[in-house]
């Protein structure tokens, strides 16, 4: 990844020639601080909305399910089921959308030849990963205060699921950012795809309750696998879908990241000059 970001840099530093790697590192550091600042303070109370957004979603779904008098799904507490599913889903979606918009949000900074589009995308992905982990921990702590059991029985499996969703988000975002930059109409199509993703990923209903053949169709979506795996990691007796496959999620993530980086490598110049 380092190579792709740096191989077009022929840079003589001001006092001593810097290596491509050290330029990239200082660009990443500067970008990370810049992105973190605007994420927390770009608008009034931006940091507050960062947290309140998932809280509101969880609360909203809780109210709906309570009204339907559903207290457990697939053998586990409904609150845990919703919260883990939503947080896992946000891990994917927030990363994907933030990375997708990374280029358009940083256009002014490409005036410096040290900054490449792929830098902004990767730095945003890292920042969103950190933020989502923090948000997840805060929400789980909050749920624990309300008396829900929030200690995962298999923490490694939960981490594996979240990490896979994060990688999938990066891959999706990398490809979408290039597509967005090259053909504006594709951005609208990507937006259309993202909208029903919330529903078909099994945030609001258990995919295991969907009859065949539709269940297999829904399981073509790698995000659904990540959500189910995260829930299973929390509660081992959860009745997840039988065809759950982490390999599918990770396969999608790696292929899309590779494709995304290749697209960035190929179209980096077109992205800046547009």
């Amino acid at each position, binding site marked *: 990844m380092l190579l792709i970001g740096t191989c077009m840099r*022929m840079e*003589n*530093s*001001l006092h001593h020639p*810097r290596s491509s790697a*050290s*330029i990239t590192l*200082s*660009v990443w*550091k*500067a*970008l990370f*601080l*810049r992105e973190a*600042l*605007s994420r927390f303070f*770009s608008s009034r109370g931006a940091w507050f909305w960062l947290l309140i957004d998932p809280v509101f979603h969880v609360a909203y779904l809780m109210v709906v399910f309570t009204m339907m008098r559903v207290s457990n799904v697939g053998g586990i507490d409904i609150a845990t089921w919703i919260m883990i599913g939503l947080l896992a889903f946000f891990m994917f979606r927030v990363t994907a959308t933030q990375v997708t918009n990374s280029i358009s949000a*940083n256009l*002014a*900074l*490409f*005036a*410096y*030849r*040290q*900054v490449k589009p792929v830098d902004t995308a990767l730095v945003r992905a890292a920042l969103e990963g950190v933020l989502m982990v923090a948000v997840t921990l805060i929400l789980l702590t909050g749920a624990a205060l309300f008396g829900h059991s929030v200690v995962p029985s298999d923490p490694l499996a939960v981490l594996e699921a979240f990490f896979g969703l994060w990688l999938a988000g990066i891959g999706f975002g990398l490809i979408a950012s290039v597509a967005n930059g090259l053909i504006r109409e594709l951005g609208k199509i990507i937006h259309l795809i993202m909208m029903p993703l919330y529903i078909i990923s099994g945030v609001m209903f258990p995919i295991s309750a969907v009859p065949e053949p539709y269940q297999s169709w829904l399981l073509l979506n790698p995000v659904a696998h990540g959500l189910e795996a995260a829930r299973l990691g929390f509660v081992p007796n959860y009745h997840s879908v039988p065809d759950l496959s982490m390999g599918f999620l990770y396969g999608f993530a790696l292929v899309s990241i590779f494709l995304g980086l290749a697209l960035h490598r190929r179209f980096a*110049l*077109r992205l*800046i*000059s*547009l």
Partner: protein
Amino acid sequence: MIVVENVHKRYMTDHGFGHWVLKGVSFTIPPKLNVGLIGANGAGKSTLLSIIGGVDQPNKGRVERLCRVSWPMGFGGGLQGTLTGRQNAKFVCRIHGFEADLQDRLRSIQNFAQIGAAFDQPVKTYSSGMRSRLQFALSLAFDFDVYISDEVTAAGDAAFRKKAAAAFKDLADHASLIMVSHDETTLKQFCSAGIWIKDGKAHWFDQIDDALKAYKEDQNS
């Protein structure tokens, strides 16, 4: 020294490729030489500047920068609107690898820009004069061998313009400049050589006066 070799450039438009803005531009700028770029609006001056600055890449041909070259300084570019002046300045210092003496550089940028409390306000709230003050101060904070300037001296109010011209003069003594300007006196004041861009070709003149003469004769004919 900057070597520009057979540079071709055209842009993508909504209807496929546009016309060639630059068709085979070649020249070599030796060290310690100030060069003025002249040509009509839309002739490709700014395009050439950003290619020399490494921000844009030619479709064909290549540019070799055998020295420390600044980013293209000019209107608008390089400042992120949502960040404050200070945060922008920090960003530029960091990507150039100046982490250790960050505070010193920030102080000198702030002192030169003289935009007061606005230094800690988002750049999008700045007037265009304040923006160019900041941009100019930013570019002075680093010691480049070659400064690329797209009409920067034309910015700001009278007082700042005077200060900027003095700083620019000082700069021109120890570093070289590649500048675009439509102001003849500015060009004559700072540049010794000139490049006239016409129909996607570059014509080199050892004397800026000759370049200006050729440009004017062409316009009048």
